[in-house]
């Protein structure tokens, strides 16, 4: 079936539409009335000072947190409050700000876990080692290796995930997210802890995978050079409130944004 959203007709079905999300933790409103619409293929940035509520938005979209109010529509479906694994199965994948790899497993196995949802053979076929299962296992292994190659990690396939360098771990997170075959990729600070060279490569990589896999990307990042160079559209959060939205150049000259990042101008 051809992807319906690619049709240029006017009454396009919605891709991702987030409506007035609110997240409260006790008395704290971490995110207030957050709205966002994404079009297929877009590369959008979500920025803001520490504690602004960016990760919380990701957690609501992917089902980790149940929003206190608001709706999330995905391809004309209301996915608000669905369990995490079901949302992943619908084509939304994420990486984590604080890397969350399967530390005891190899690099390849980490990616193979993501392919588990594509498995057709049931568990007893695996226990009996039937040909149907073995064929599926080979397919999963080959495809997982393909994703590792894409991310330049194939030579580390048999290493333990926890033995990788930090930048490589972040790349492995992306490989693992890609292996769930998403249409929307949510990257939470993918460049954190990377050196300038790695960051530059990462920007290139994000563009490449977007084009190759037909992804839409929403990313959180503190590295302004990275965000401004990569994203077509940026949304700025501060204390849970959206304070600005626009192209990189609009954001850079927005007084609210400058205030949020630099604080009130001090009096002499």
């Amino acid at each position, binding site marked *: 079936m051809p992807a319906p959203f690619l049709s240029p007709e006017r009454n396009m079905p919605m891709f991702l539409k987030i409506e007035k999300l609110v997240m409260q933790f006790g008395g704290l409103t971490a995110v207030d009335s957050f709205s966002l619409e994404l079009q297929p293929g877009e590369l959008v940035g979500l920025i803001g000072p520490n504690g602004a509520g960016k990760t919380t938005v990701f957690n609501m979209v992917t089902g980790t947190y149940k929003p206190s109010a608001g709706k999330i529509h995905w391809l004309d479906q209301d996915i608000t409050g669905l369990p995490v694994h079901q949302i992943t*199965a619908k084509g939304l994948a994420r990486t984590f700000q604080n890397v969350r790899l399967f530390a005891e497993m190899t690099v390849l196995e980490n990616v193979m876990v993501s392919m588990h949802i594509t498995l057709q053979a049931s568990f007893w076929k695996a226990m009996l*080692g039937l040909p149907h299962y073995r064929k599926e296992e080979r397919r999963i292994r080959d495809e997982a290796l393909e994703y590792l190659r894409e991310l330049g990690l194939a030579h580390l396939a048999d290493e333990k995930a926890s033995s990788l360098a930090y930048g490589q771990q972040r790349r492995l997170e992306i490989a693992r997210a890609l292996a769930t075959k998403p249409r929307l990729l949510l990257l939470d600070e993918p460049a954190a802890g990377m050196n300038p060279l790695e960051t530059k490569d990462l920007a290139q990589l994000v563009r490449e995978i977007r084009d190759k896999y037909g992804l839409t990307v929403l990313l959180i990042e503190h590295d302004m050079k990275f965000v401004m160079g990569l994203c077509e559209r940026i949304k700025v959060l501060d204390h849970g409130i959206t304070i600005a939205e626009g192209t990189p150049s609009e954001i850079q000259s927005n007084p609210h944004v400058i205030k949020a990042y630099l604080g009130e101008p001090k009096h002499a």
Partner: protein
Amino acid sequence: MTRDRVKLVLNILALLLLFSILYFFDRYGSPYHVRILNNMGIFITLAVSYNLVNGYCGVLHLGPNAFIAIGAYTSSLLTMSPLEKQMNFIIEPLMWPLSVLQAPFSLSLICGGVAAALFAFLISFPVFRVRGDYLAIVTLGFGEVVRVLCNASQSVTNGPLGLKGLTPHTNLWWSWGIAVLTLILVVRLVNSSYGRAMKAIRDNEPAAMAMGVNPFRHLLMAFLISAFFCGVGGGLLAHLITTISPTLFTFFLTFNLLIIVVVGGLGSTTGAVLGAILFAWGGEALRVVESPMNLGFMTLPGIPGMRMVLFSVILMLVIIFMRRGIMGHREFSWDWILDKLQRKEAELKKP
């Protein structure tokens, strides 16, 4: 020959070796040795299946004694003849239809496994709503509940009197045959995509969910499979010792299994097997500490229960000095040995 062929041949050779050893003991071994070997086989089955939940899913489940009890009672009630049952149930008669049902040993073992898995399914909803210490406490509670029920349901389990005079169906072929079967099936499962999903839940549950793994489904799968084999092991145990009563299935039994898998290495099937072998052998070998000891100048009286003290000390030493047990997460594999051999060969060829 390809690597896979070589491994297949090695596996067959290992099995042949195992069964020749069993044959030897079956023919010429003393009853003492046969009993130890039977215990080993049964404890391998129990430990390997227990490890599936505790080691591979990383869930501290403390109720395998319940599954073993259910398997033991179910299987025993099925192999006893109606007449034997009548003679056992003297206080209250066994309720119908259990009083008339009878099945061959093999079928009774399967029924024991199924009954245990059914019970596991019933308790899985409350159990997997929680994690960590809470899950440990909930499963511990269910384990205790089953023992108390066994004690109280006179018309099903014969209460504290237990079941006596079971036919000793369990022999070396049964105990080791089931052990090998359990091993093959569990090893295949943990090395499959399903096993990877379980390990992913163990390593990082939020990340596993974000990669599309449904935790409940996979924990339940491991729990039911584990319960099934524990139930079968219970049936074997019952027909080895031929007398069962609720006191056999206290938390103590769970504690023994816990020692086995922790000492062997949580999350290593090889470790579970080694642990079970050491336990079954050590349990007998250490009997000396419970019998009076003659030191020449004085005689120490035997202290019953001393073995358990020693086991606890061993457990503590392992936890302090070898946090990950004998094997850690490592597994025995022919690949590892073959790689070593090849490297040696390559070194020898070099001038």
